């Protein structure tokens, strides 16, 4: 699945330098500097509307940075030519918030499309791989269903099957537990860890689900809405007592453990 030369765990997969994200004149976040290590489960967290999903869209190349650069495996992703970019993008698998399955195709066709387009395997082999990927996400036998015929949670899992169709080196998740009940959400978390362990992929997750963050994150990056830049970065358990007050408050659900409760007046 991974080339031998790129198999060394711990080197940087993504390096973000001085990234400023903006829509026109409206700056979402500025001066982001961090790197994501190979094989880790990395969370991007922050309050609603802080630009988590926007950052994800920058990392997968859907939006161009208004300033700064993103490096993927040491190569400049921002400045890369269209062909180079496509070559890098093929190493990504993305699970969008609602699954983003192509509604005019069955689940099997959804998973098979990238296989047919980018590998030269036969239809029979593709079918076998599709069966395997659907089975991996617990959708064995649902291949002939259309996205409109299954539940939201199943759509999400089918989206995951499609995302791992080409054995990606980096897996992106946009709010994986949004809209899932606690049990399904926990199962999805377990599935993410298993996939990471078995495929050796790096996992980047955008989420504000504290349970998931404490459960499976190796490291997490906090985006601070108030300062419009990055807050603390590190293992979630350590961040609980971080020097960054905003991240402490976020991870403790609005309560700062280091601060005595004081009587607020208007």
């Amino acid at each position: 699945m991974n080339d031998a030369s790129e198999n060394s765990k711990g080197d940087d997969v993504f390096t973000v330098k001085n990234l400023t994200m903006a829509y026109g004149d409206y700056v979402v976040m500025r001066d982001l500097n961090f790197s994501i290590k190979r094989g880790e489960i990395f969370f991007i967290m922050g309050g609603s509307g802080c630009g988590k999903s926007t950052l994800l869209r920058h990392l997968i190349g859907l939006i161009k940075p208004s300033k700064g650069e993103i490096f993927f495996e040491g190569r400049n992703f921002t400045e890369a030519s269209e062909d180079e970019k496509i070559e890098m993008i093929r190493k990504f698998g993305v699970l969008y918030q609602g699954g983003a399955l192509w509604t005019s195709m069955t689940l099997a066709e959804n998973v098979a499309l990238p296989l047919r387009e980018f590998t030269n395997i036969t239809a029979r082999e593709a079918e076998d791989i599709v069966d395997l990927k659907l089975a991996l996400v617990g959708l064995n036998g649902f291949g002939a269903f259309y996205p409109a015929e299954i539940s939201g949670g199943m759509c999400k899992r089918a989206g995951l099957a499609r995302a791992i169709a080409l054995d990606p080196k980096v897996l992106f998740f946009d709010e994986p537990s949004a809209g899932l009940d606690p049990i399904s959400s926990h199962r999805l978390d377990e599935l993410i860890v298993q996939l990471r362990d078995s495929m050796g992929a790096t996992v980047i997750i955008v989420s504000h689900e504290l349970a998931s963050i404490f459960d499976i994150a190796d490291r997490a990056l906090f985006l601070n809405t108030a300062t419009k830049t990055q807050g603390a970065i590190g293992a979630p358990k350590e961040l609980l007592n971080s020097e960054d007050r905003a991240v402490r408050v976020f991870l403790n659900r609005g309560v700062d453990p280091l601060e005595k409760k004081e009587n607020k007046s208007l």
Partner: protein
Amino acid sequence: MDIAGNWLVGQKSTSLKKIERDLSSGISSLSFTTEKLGKYDSTLVSMLFKCHNFCRQYGISFKIDTLPQGLRELLKLAVAVPEADSAKKIGYNTHNIVRMLGERTLGFLDSCTMYAGFIGDLTITFSKAIFGKARFRMYDLLTLMQRTGPEALPIVALISFLVGLILAFVGAIQLAKYGSEIFVADLVGIAMVREMGAIMVGVVMSGRTGAAFAAELGSMKVNEEISAFKTFGISPIEFLVYPRVLALILMFPLLTVFADVIGMLGGMAIGIGMFDIGYEQYMNRTLAALDIVQISTGIGKSLVFGAIVAVIGCQKGLSAENSSLGVGRATTASVVQSITWIIVADAIFAVAFAIFDI
């Protein structure tokens, strides 16, 4: 401030203007007495919230400790998060005509650039397709051809039959004054083949298919399906737009020929039924009036109209805003613009044909 009586929705209460006037008269703190307060609902809370904002504005200290517990808690909640500056949208004044003109002009220039880019991408895709390198599914192309061709036949038949009928009726009444009803065959034949066939197919298809393309691609964008294509390195232009444009360009000439024939049948129904022209006479007159040049002008135009409907429908869909409202807007814009551009293109053709004497 003494708060008394009932404060309920729909009841008259002290005007805010008066309160503000009193507050701005130089007092340094505001506290309340509520002994005579009766029933109250959000009307009172909203008045107090406004008072709080006035007080902040004039630097007056706002004391709430004498208010009932429930009111205190609600007020605390309301002022817990200060009003965000960035939340104030810069609304532009629609009454300012210069500004409006500027916005519209910039918007028009933007859409020109967008179309230029889109048509450029599409041209690259078409040239790739010539060398067999375009990435799309033949199955999609065939399904689209089925949807935009055979399935459109009934509505195209109905509309063109009626158009032929109307042309014949209006024309024959005038021609009858000179005793030359038979020329209605020429009139209907030439009008359908040169103009009405292609235009009617264009109008019907922009409402039927162009709108469908815009709505389809727009919802795909809202569902992030378009992003999903991009993150697999598959160009939506190649995979989604190219087969749609190709399907319409292939189907439009066929639909136009079909509309021409049905339109002439409509004319014939009037000619034979109301003006006693013989079947053979009508047929002979029609065939004498038409030649290959006239038929091919109509077909040539239909190729362009097909491209217009498909390109505008797809472009509007792909640039739709990410909401159901956005999809609705894209659909409307696609129909309006397609029909406009079909008429504009037809006018250009008319001038060009006149210059080159076709």
